């Protein structure tokens, strides 16, 4: 139980930090992705810290400029955890079928891979997928 409380505190602190400070400002010194530092490649999650800051401020358009997938999958992730929380609180066992639908899950995998490849092509319109202002 105690570690769950620790995780909850850490989560609140993390969200507060991402709300207060903009990772796009380099002097704020947010950790850079090690993969990007070494290879200059944008992986799937590149820009998600900056996108998260914008999402917390309600700037969803700017958030899509940093990482479209973070914005698209936010409702998907939140809904799952809301359902889990509801199930836990009210002792129910509700499951949405698309969370365990193999076609949906395979599509997500394919979309992620295509997205990661495309955002590394430095030509318009693919460079719109790379993190930008």
């Amino acid at each position, binding site marked *: 139980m105690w570690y769950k409380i620790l995780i909850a505190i850490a989560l609140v602190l993390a969200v507060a930090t991402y709300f207060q400070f903009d990772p796009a400002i380099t002097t704020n*010194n947010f*950790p*850079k*992705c*090690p*993969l*990007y530092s070494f290879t200059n490649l944008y*992986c*799937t*999650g*590149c820009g*998600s*810290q900056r996108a*998260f800051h914008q999402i917390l401020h309600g700037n969803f358009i700017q958030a899509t400029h940093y*990482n479209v*997938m*973070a914005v698209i*999958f936010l409702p*998907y*992730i939140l809904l*799952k*955890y809301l359902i889990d929380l509801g199930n836990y609180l009210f002792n129910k066992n509700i499951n949405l079928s698309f*969370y*365990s*639908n*193999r076609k949906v*899950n*395979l599509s*997500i*995998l394919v979309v*992620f*891979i295509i997205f*990661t490849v495309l955002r590394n092509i430095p030509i318009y319109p693919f460079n719109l997928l790379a993190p930008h202002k």
Partner: protein
Amino acid sequence: MNKPKNYMVESILVTLFCCLPLGIVGIINASKVDAAAAAGNDAEAQRLSAEAYKWVKYGFFAGLVVGVLYLVFMFVLGGVAMMGNR
């Protein structure tokens, strides 16, 4: 026999927010769990579920370690800079 947990949402979270491609391996395994369960291959589904969980764990802790090391590094640098300014 209950369907094993597929760890799809957790894999996506790690992929998007830990900035490390380990989550992709999690997604690959997670997307196979329900296929194996649907085919009636319970042992395989269990194995894939455990595998997905493993990669989610690796990705999460890799992200955490990088983050913590970075913070420590920044504090050390900040301390050195402050002492230099005395």
